[in-house]
């Protein structure tokens, strides 16, 4: 049965749901069993111990606080930027600028900000060089502080582009007549936002909130890099238990992550349940394009340049760093330059080429699978109302809500048993986990923007299922597919832990080859590796962009 020929939502979503359940299910069960030490005597003692441990509770609260603050600030900044900039952001170049921070893995971005804003960072050094202060410690201490300012800054800087990516399609489909209506009825700006924008924006904001929140609360790299000794975020503690020298601590890692996971998934499910109704009405859009006018036209230019600066400054510093041999604190310019960093990266020669090809191949395959599975699922979610929809939505989103170490053990055991561990097929399949939810999310928004009516017209004019997809949906889904290409390649390339475990060293992607270098002290090496790394998604993006142009020559505007 071909999915595009059916309109049964269960059939449309079956592949996505099955693959999610297959990958997640065993993993979660294993994690839970491990956490209750099922192999000797099942007991909940670890949970009791953790929940009465002061350090653990402090850590949970600290994690929740950091995640909450970073998420809220990201959402607000993202919302303001999108509201003021969406006509500008429709063009490709500004969009690429807005998305740029996403091509850098989180910890690299954290590292870039560290280079800029630490007490001995470039800004501090510059101020010192200009004679504005004497000692590095006169510069505000933003990193490794007990409040987590550095972590929050990094996440906000990184997540704002993601918020933009999620919100932009919504603003592109808002109609300006509705806004005018509110104005003529005596409404103010706020009323316009509340009555016209909120109903569309709010559900997406909520979803974005959960994605970002869940990510921040369970991600390891940034707090490990920039966090203070005390308090530590939960993922740092869990990783330590998981990878630490004392293997008897491993169940603690699982228990901590299970607690976190339950908490997140429960909240998400409840939210879907309660906001279900709002979204249905939004799906009845007619698909007409509206002329767009930004709210604050005069500020939008200024804002865009601020955004441009914020994006390019860290990247500029990174490029510069990759050539710096020595840059003493307080000097305005580096005292000596070198290409050593680049040399170190590129002497790998054949290994490097192999890694580039492997990475490209894997991300393209992951992308292909994502589209094959994601397109029908997204359509099903966009156009159908059915029993258990909230459950399916939560399930399809859950892979990004669940920390990867929770499911790593189960997935690895399964993959070993069916023989796809230590093989690229396993890596490709496991990469579906962190990518598929985004794909479905973005494509669903795309389908909702097009609306169902055009399909009816086309069908009535004699278009078969494939004809409808090829001629009506596909061309109009291009902007969404573009976002998917971007997100999926970036995420797939950035996967270190899952690739290392499942690929087992047989599959040498860029991440596997270069992540170890992050442990060197040589900034030039780290910087050149970071740049190289960020280039790959851009290359993929350009490749796909070129292909799209060939396949679909004409695109309106």
């Amino acid at each position, binding site marked *: 049965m071909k999915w595009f020929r059916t309109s049964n939502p269960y059939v449309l979503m079956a592949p996505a749901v099955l693959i999610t359940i297959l990958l997640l299910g065993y993993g979660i069960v294993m994690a839970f069993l491990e956490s209750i030490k099922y192999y000797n005597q099942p007991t909940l003692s670890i949970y009791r111990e953790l929940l009465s441990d002061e350090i653990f509770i402090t850590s949970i609260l600290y994690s929740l606080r950091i995640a909450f603050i970073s998420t809220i600030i990201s959402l607000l900044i993202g919302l303001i930027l999108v509201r003021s900039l969406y006509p500008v952001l429709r063009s490709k170049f500004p969009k690429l600028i807005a998305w740029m921070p996403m091509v850098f893995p989180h910890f690299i971005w954290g590292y870039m900000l560290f280079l800029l804003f630490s007490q001995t960072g470039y800004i501090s050094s510059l101020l010192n060089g200009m004679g504005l202060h004497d000692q590095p410690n006169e510069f505000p201490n933003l990193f490794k502080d007990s409040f987590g300012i550095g972590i929050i800054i990094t996440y906000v800087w990184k997540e704002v582009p993601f918020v933009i990516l999620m919100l932009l399609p919504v603003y592109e489909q808002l109609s300006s007549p509705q806004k005018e209506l509110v104005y003529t009825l005596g409404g103010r700006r706020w009323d316009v936002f509340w009555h016209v924008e909120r109903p569309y924006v709010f559900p997406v904001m909520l979803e974005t909130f959960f994605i970002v929140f869940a990510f921040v609360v369970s991600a390891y790299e940034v707090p490990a890099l920039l966090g203070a000794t005390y308090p530590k975020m939960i993922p740092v503690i869990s990783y330590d238990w998981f990878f630490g020298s004392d293997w008897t601590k491993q169940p603690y890692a699982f228990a901590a992550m299970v607690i976190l996971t339950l908490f997140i998934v429960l909240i998400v499910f409840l939210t879907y349940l309660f906001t279900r109704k709002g979204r249905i009405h939004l799906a009845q859009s*007619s*698909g*007409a*394009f509206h002329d767009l006018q930004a709210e604050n036209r005069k500020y939008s230019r200024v804002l865009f340049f601020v955004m441009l600066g914020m994006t390019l400054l860290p990247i500029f510093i990174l490029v510069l760093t990759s050539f710096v041999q020595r840059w003493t604190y307080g000097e305005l310019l580096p005292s000596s330059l070198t290409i050593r960093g680049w040399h170190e990266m590129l002497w790998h020669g054949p290994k490097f080429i192999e890694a580039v090809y492997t990475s490209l191949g894997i991300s393209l395959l992951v992308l292909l699978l994502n589209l094959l599975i994601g397109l029908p699922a997204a359509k099903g979610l966009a156009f159908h109302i059915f029993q258990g929809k909230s459950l399916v939505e939560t399930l399809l989103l859950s892979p990004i809500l669940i920390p990867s170490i929770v499911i790593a053990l189960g997935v690895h055991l399964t993959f070993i048993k069916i023989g796809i561990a230590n093989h690229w097929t396993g890596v490709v399949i496991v990469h579906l986990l962190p990518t598929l939810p985004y794909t479905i999310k973005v494509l669903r928004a795309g389908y909702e923007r097009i609306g169902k*009516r*055009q399909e*009816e*017209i*086309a*069908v*009535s*004019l*004699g*278009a*078969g299922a494939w*004809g409808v997809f090829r*001629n*009506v949906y596909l*061309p*109009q889904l291009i902007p969404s597919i573009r976002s998917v290409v971007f997100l999926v390649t970036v995420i797939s390339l950035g996967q270190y832990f899952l690739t290392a475990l499942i690929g087992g060293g047989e599959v040498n992607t860029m991440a596997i080859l270069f992540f170890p270098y992050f442990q060197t002290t040589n900034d030039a090496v780290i910087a050149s590796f970071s740049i190289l790394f960020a280039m790959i998604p851009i290359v993929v993006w350009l490749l796909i962009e070129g292909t799209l142009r060939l396949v679909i020559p*004409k*695109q*309106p505007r």
Partner: protein
Amino acid sequence: MESHFIELSDIRKVYKDKEVLNLNQLRVRKGEIISVVGPSGTGKSTLLRLIAGLEKADTGEIMIDGEQITNVPPQQRPVVYMFQESLLFPHMNVLENVAFGLKMAKVSKKKRYEKSKEMMKRVGLEGLESDFPHEISGGQKQRAALARSLIVHPKVLLLDEPFSSLDTELRKETRRWIKHLLKSENITVLFVTHDLEEAMALGDRVAVLNKGKLQQLDSPHVLYESPFNPFVASFLQGGIWTEERFIPVSSLKLGRHDNQNGRKAEVIETYYQDGKFHCVLSIEHSEAIITLTTREKVNVGEHVKVFEVER
């Protein structure tokens, strides 16, 4: 027995325990234009969607041109559906939009563009081939949408309030040439509207629907002169239903309020048009509203009497 081009029998459709459509029988002749009217929410659009195959009836049969199509998928039905808004595909230019049906029928590119250009000429869209939908006016969009529908030579065309997004003048103009075009193509048309004038002007016959049931299907003249029931009468505002008998407006006359005979009425609106005063009257003790003409000016709020005149 008379042959019918479209024949619907025992159609029933229920949404969430609510019956939206229940038709014993609906028969349309070839080349006929049927206007479908009725209060909103009476299943007009549902009727069209059932015929187009976009929805499935719970029971009943649909025949078109002697063929059973109840279980035929929508793309294989000889039927084209047109929405309220033009719904041109925003990512295709006008020519591609018009040619869409032919493309789906796997007509060669050269041939389909040739035919489409011809069709565009017929609907007066010459020269707009490479424009995109957002670049043309509302009226042009409707013409393009019509051209897109007609190019596949459907046996039946279903129009769902196709003019509702146009302004009054444009509507009138558009409906005139559409009627002309449809007649010249000899296409059978079902046309949903909420505008009575439009329904009468365009339809050879008019179907009045209420609460999912067909009330009456007749020519405009018959509808006005002899409605089947009080609903049709009051819906069309064509006269007064009194003592199980219908008196059409054409047999009614306005008189002063102190007359002995006649029925009491209140003037609720007056306007001057075509050299006469028109007054809209609300008949006392009934829901009927009618419009009569008079030579003298009457004021809103005045009480008058309405007489039946012999013809």
